[in-house]
């Protein structure tokens, strides 16, 4: 394949920027913030795989595999926490979660 690494990096950059925009813009909604984090982690995985393909060593792919394991752990914990918070206050609005003592 003859696509330069440079173009892969541009796609990853734009995707990361969109994930960041999602986290910043939807900061009132916990679930959309988590989706933004997913988009950013996928952009990072694209960077790792592109580098791995460019230099012909497997390490980048391994790190994207570990990133997937990290993401699944993070998402399971974060969604369990969303369910817990929703059970307490019946909302996912971050502005309502403003007290340390439940």
């Amino acid at each position: 394949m003859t696509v330069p690494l440079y173009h892969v990096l541009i796609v990853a950059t734009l995707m990361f920027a969109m994930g960041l925009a999602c986290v910043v813009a939807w900061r009132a909604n916990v679930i959309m913030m988590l989706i933004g984090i997913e988009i950013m982690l996928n952009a990072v995985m694209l960077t790792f795989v592109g580098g791995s393909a460019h230099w012909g060593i497997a390490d980048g792919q391994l790190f994207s595999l570990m990133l997937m394991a990290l993401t699944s752990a993070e998402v399971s914990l974060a969604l369990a926490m969303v369910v817990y918070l929703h059970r307490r206050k019946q909302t996912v609005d971050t502005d309502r979660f403003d007290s340390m003592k439940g």
Partner: protein
Amino acid sequence: MEATLFYILAAVTLIGTLCAITARQAVRAIVYLVTSFFALALIFYLLGAPLIAAFEVIIYAGAIMVLFLFVIMMLELGSPEKLPKPRPSDWWPALLLVGAVVGSVVVLVADGQPAGLPGFVEISARQFAQTLFQQYGVAVEVISMQLLFALVGALYLGRRR
């Protein structure tokens, strides 16, 4: 041929992500994101990472996004009036950030093309597995412990009281 396919898939990924972050309902955002991740999995395949492409479809599009969908439906957040929306003023910082990133990319592209790079090298599953279990054996153990801790934490948070 492959290069054309790459640019088409990149466009699908970026447009899918854009639709996901501007969707009015969370369920629609998830479905757009699944589309985007399928295209991303094909990009991984084109970049010579068939295993990562399979894991992307199985774990990301198949498990994580379905987990999101389960939580949205379990909490009955599917109707649009249940979810807090970003106010128009919330979009300004996001647009500023994206504008800065896109502007820097445009400056980089306009600055000059780097010389044509050599083609990508495909990494076989054998090479992948050998590197994983010979060089990064400790990391595999650490990841397994991390998954166990996440499991225990999720069980603790989800228990009835």
